[in-house]
């Protein structure tokens, strides 16, 4: 019997269809894996199920009864609990207080602490936790906090627990304990929906899986009858059409950047790779693989512990991004709105901020020069804007991204580091950005490209470096480089 039936769920955000006729059925007592690439719609679907978002259409049946949740509280009351990737515990309170937050036993001014602690103790032992309910949450490890979250979910008498990448921060024995806990939950009749990028785990604990891609359900199948390859194929898809420009082979020049044994404890270790002039090197990996951290260190935005960076034949010793930019390195940051642009300022101010020297003489800004430089960049990158005095906030995501690219061009960089340059950009503008990137490489500049979209990396990169949890797992070039191969290395 199915505890949950979601039928033909639709959801769109500002005209973008996030979920299209999604149907999901979950059997009572099973662990149901939900898989898909970033942006496939898993989180949106789970937010609808847990009452955070309202669907545009479709029907949800829970324990055979048609339901609609106006808020997370409503879903909780029916017995659906969600454990988010970012834990939501109050650090300064005790475990027991967190479990019963807002509903401690007894009256407001006369709380029955004995009962609170006893109840908390019972819940903790159910999830296999061995710490006292009086412990402060801030003294727990992340894994232990996870257990508190699960205990909290149980305290609502949850029949269905959704776990959104609970393992992202766990490893080794902590992971084992999480699996044990999930097992004992299902033995007690609780159903679990489990979201994870790690295929190993899926095979280890899931009974059935549902694969999503581009807001649609691709398939639901039994894990026992599924191979790893089938899952990867389902997640990645095979469509490779003229979304991407044809890449002419560019003759590669000398090594421009050489990263040797770069290590930042707890983030990444022993990373070594080269980038040649005219080359686009893609960094592939899942969230948390350490890609952004590595390039931020190259750019001088963060410090690293060990290793060496050689740039244009000389050791690169930059203490801050300003020095990196003077050396000829530019970064297009992951977070466009907060790190790439000052959205409340005009395009002119944004475009020239990476190289004010170029538009000033004796410290004085040359307005005319600045205006001309800005207009030229806008023209060159075909930014759609009425004027360079337009505020960046008024531009579409794609055009904003072009401005960030323009800013890095204005600094006359020879090495461009692009961190998710097409995130949140519509298909048309994406293509234009691809053309810009390829044009840069053609003109002899070196590019390090980070992207969560494998297709994008494959289409643009000369060579791919695959990372997994801060370790370099392999380099792929030419025919070797396929989505399946990346996924295999990235999931390691």
């Amino acid at each position, binding site marked *: 019997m199915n505890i949950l039936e979601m039928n033909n769920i639709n959801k769109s955000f500002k005209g973008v269809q996030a979920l299209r006729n999604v149907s999901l059925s979950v059997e009572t007592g099973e662990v149901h894996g939900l898989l898909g690439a970033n942006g496939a719609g898993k989180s949106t679907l789970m937010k609808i199920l847990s009452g955070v978002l309202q669907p545009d259409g479709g029907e949800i049946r829970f324990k055979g009864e048609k339901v609609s949740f106006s808020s997370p509280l409503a879903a909780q009351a029916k017995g659906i609990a969600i454990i988010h990737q970012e834990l939501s515990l109050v650090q300064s309170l005790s475990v027991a207080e967190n479990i019963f937050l807002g509903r401690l036993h007894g009256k407001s001014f006369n709380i029955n602490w004995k009962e609170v602690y006893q109840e908390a103790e019972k819940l903790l032992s159910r999830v296999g936790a061995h710490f006292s309910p009086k412990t402060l949450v801030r003294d727990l490890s992340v894994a232990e906090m996870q257990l508190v979250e699960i205990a909290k979910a149980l305290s609502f008498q949850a029949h269905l627990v959704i776990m959104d990448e609970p393992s992202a921060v766990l490893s080794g024995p902590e992971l084992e304990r999480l699996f044990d806990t999930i097992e004992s939950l299902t033995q007690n009749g609780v159903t679990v929906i489990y979201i994870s990028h790690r295929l190993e785990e899926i095979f280890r604990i899931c009974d059935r899986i549902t694969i999503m891609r581009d807001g649609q359900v691709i398939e639901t199948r039994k894990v026992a009858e599924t191979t790893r390859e089938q899952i990867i194929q389902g997640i990645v898809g095979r469509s490779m059409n003229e979304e991407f420009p044809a890449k002419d082979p560019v003759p590669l020049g000398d090594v421009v950047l050489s990263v040797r044994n770069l290590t930042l404890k707890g983030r990444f270790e022993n990373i070594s790779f080269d980038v040649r002039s005219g080359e686009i090197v893609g960094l592939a990996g899942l969230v948390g693989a350490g890609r952004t951290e590595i390039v931020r260190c190259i750019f001088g935005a963060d410090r690293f512990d060990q290793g060496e960076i050689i740039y244009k034949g000389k050791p690169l010793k930059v203490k801050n991004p300003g020095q990196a930019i003077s050396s000829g390195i530019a970064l297009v940051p992951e977070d466009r709105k907060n790190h790439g642009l*000052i959205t*409340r*300022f005009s395009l002119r*101010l944004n475009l020239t901020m*990476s190289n004010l020297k170029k538009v*000033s003489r004796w410290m004085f*800004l040359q307005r005319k020069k600045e205006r001309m430089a800005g207009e030229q960049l806008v023209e060159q990158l075909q930014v759609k804007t009425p004027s360079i005095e337009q*505020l960046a906030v008024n531009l579409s995501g794609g055009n904003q991204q072009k401005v960030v690219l323009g800013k890095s061009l204005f600094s006359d960089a020879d090495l461009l580091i692009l961190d998710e340059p097409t995130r949140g950009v519509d298909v048309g503008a994406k293509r234009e950005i691809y053309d810009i990137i390829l044009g840069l490489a053609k003109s002899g500049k070196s590019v390090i490209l980070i992207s969560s979209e494998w297709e994008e990396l494959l289409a643009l990169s000369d060579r791919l470096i695959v990372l997994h949890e801060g370790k370099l797992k392999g380099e792929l070039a030419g025919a070797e480089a396929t989505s399946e191969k990346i996924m295999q290395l990235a999931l390691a």
Partner: protein
Amino acid sequence: MGDAKVLHDVQKQTVQKETVKNQTGKRTGGWKLRIGIADLGPVVALAILLIVGSVMSPVFMTKENIFNILSQIAKLGLGALGMTYVMISGYLDLSIAGILSLCNVMAVGLERSIGTVPAVLIVLALGTFIGLVNGTLLRLIKGDMGASVMITFGTGTILSALALIYTGGYSIRADDDPLFYWFGNGKISGLPVVVIFFFICAVIFHIVLKYTSFGRSLYLTGANPEAARLSGIATARVRTVAFMLMGAIAAFAAVVVSSQTVSASPVAGANYELDVIAAVVIGGTSLNGGEGSIFRTIIGVLLIGVLSNLFILIGLSTFDQMMAKGLIIIAALIMDKYKHLGMSRG
């Protein structure tokens, strides 16, 4: 053409600044014609005050009274120039009360022992150095706006204590020196020297802010420190320089004050920091960094100066004046908030 051009540019920038706040997303190109209402508020208020003043008191619009007002606001105005830089860069400086007190007593103490010129130079250097310390501390802890409040409160408290220790808690009198007396009381063809000083400083601060890459960096840093840093702006250095200019000009204000009174009090700076911040905010510079102008600040300072003068002319008690000042500060902040609310509704 000098004045006219400056004024013209001020108006132009005023309009541009307004469009910065106008995030309605309309691409009508008509933005150039929009008049900066937010900037206009303080200007209109000042105009009304001037009209009311001339109606209510026959002495108000006399040359003597106007020079009197301008001399009175020198201390506030000088500090407000520096504070405008610090606030545009996204920080606040509460240490200027301590700087003013310490530099005030040291200016007089040194004037008595080693003469006016070395005294003034040492005091200016001291103010600049304190700014360097403030900036360096904040760079080391990668401080945000809140941290700047606490750090400068800390350094300011130390400086206030040093001022008290320096004189043993007493006020001290300056030696008779015409040059020392001249700073605060001298006149050049009828115009008070203080007013000329203030005017020169204001023009320099305005030009540096609007026309140099340093001025631009102040805005960029204050609007979004991380984006500015990733674009190669040396945000920590820019902010440190702002603190140093703030320290130097606060020290200069201390010299002026000690000369005006020909004496020094170790508590001369009490409430100075808050009065200065209030003047800058009343002028329309935001507490959130990334926007503001010397023009706005001068309007804010004039508003306070004219208002206090009027209060005295119509015979309001000191207590009533305090009450009025408090109300005006609150009103200015509400207006600032309202501007930003309008922005986010955009």
